[in-house]
Each structure stands twice: as structure tokens, then as C-alpha cells.
């Protein structure tokens, strides 16, 4: 097990959508500090602008709408939910016109590539002739 990931999303559209998305992101980060949530890692994207190729997308023409996505890895499930809820709270405590909020929390399963001694692997091959 490798902690929890809490995620929240909310959309902004129209004039100033990108600016409102950025402000909303800053508000969530400040709120998390105020309530004492310190994630192991936190990531904030504006889907439609910089979620896939990072800052490179920021050079593009401003989109009509953006979707803020804040995701954070935390040690506890409760803190993961706090991250998600702070995004949802933007409905009534954030920039104007935020809509379509969603939240999710999931547990992180750790994976590790490794090698096993050859003699611990048993195998066999069957040849079957088909007329």
C-alpha cells in the first residue's frame, strides 16, 4: 500500500475562465494549508490547457472553458477526502460560475519491478499436432 489519492474537479467557462481556474487552484492550496492537510505530493492542472503536456499547452490560444483538477497523494484516507472536498467547496466558496464538480478517493497499490531466481520458475511446453 502506498497511501491514498484524493481528487476533485470543477469547470469554468466563458470570459476569464482560465484566470478563474488559476484562482480556484490557488484557493484550494491555501485552504489545505489552513486546515493542516500536507499531502505527500499535490498536482493541479487546468484540463484543456496544461493537463497533458505541462506548461507547453499554456502557449495555446485561451480555451472557452477549462476544468480544474486537483489531485494529491496523502497518507490517510481522511486527508484524501479533504483534498477532494476543498475542490467541491469551490461551488460556494470560490470564483464565479464553477460547475460540475466531482470528487474521488482511491487507495494506491504500490508496484515494484523485480527479478526472481530462475529455479523458482517451473515451466513446460506441449507440442500439439493438428492434422
Amino acid at each position: 500500500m502506498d497511501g491514498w489519492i484524493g481528487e476533485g474537479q470543477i469547470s469554468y467557462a466563458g470570459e476569464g475562465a482560465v484566470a478563474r481556474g488559476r484562482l480556484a487552484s490557488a484557493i484550494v492550496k491555501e485552504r489545505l494549508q489552513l486546515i493542516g492537510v500536507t499531502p505527500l505530493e499535490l498536482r493541479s492542472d487546468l484540463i484543456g490547457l496544461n493537463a497533458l503536456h505541462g506548461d507547453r499547452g499554456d502557449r495555446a490560444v485561451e480555451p472557452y472553458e477549462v476544468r480544474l483538477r486537483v489531485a494529491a497523494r496523502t497518507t490517510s484516507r481522511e486527508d484524501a477526502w479533504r483534498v477532494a472536498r476543498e475542490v467541491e467547496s469551490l461551488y460556494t466558496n470560490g470564483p464565479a460560475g464553477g460547475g460540475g464538480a466531482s470528487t474521488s478517493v482511491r487507495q494506491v497499490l504500490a508496484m515494484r519491478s523485480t527479478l526472481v531466481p530462475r529455479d523458482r520458475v517451473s515451466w513446460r511446453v506441449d507440442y500439439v499436432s493438428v492434422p
Partner: protein
Amino acid sequence: VTLREIAHARTGDKGDTCNISLIAFDERDYPRLLQHATAPRVKALFGGMVRGDVTRYELPHLGALNFVMTRALGGGVTRSLALDAHGKSLSTLLLDLEI
């Protein structure tokens, strides 16, 4: 002109390592891939998205290159916070390289 005019690409992932194949539509363009799509240029293109090394493997018999990028996927699919945790969209960034 960018790479997308003469090649296509596809991304794979294994742990925190991303690999992107770059395949010339026409094998005669393979030398242009060799000339322009160098490992340092690709590393510069991806900037902070690749925290490790970029290694280029040459496959002249296929008219293709394979780029292997370490520490490139936010720790790997299971723990990455990225929307595109597999990095499947990174192939289109490679195709944006100016040639």
C-alpha cells in the same frame, strides 16, 4: 515543419519509464529522423516532464527510433497524479519537434 509531417509515434510505459517509438512513414526519411530527433533535442523538448535521462535507440531496418525516458511518469501509473498516467499523449509532443 514538424516531425508529424514525416513520421508517426506511439507511447508505452513500464513503471516510471516512458518509451516513445518514432517511425518514418517512408523509410527514405529515416536519415532525417536520425539527423533531427537527437536525444538532447528530445530531452529539451520535454523539459521538466522528464526528470531522468533520454536514450535513443536506432532501428534502421524499421526506419524507426525508440526513445526511452526514465523518471518520466510521476512515479509510475499506480501512484502518478497525472490525468494521463500512462503518458499515452506524450507521443504527440514528440511529433511537435521542429525539423
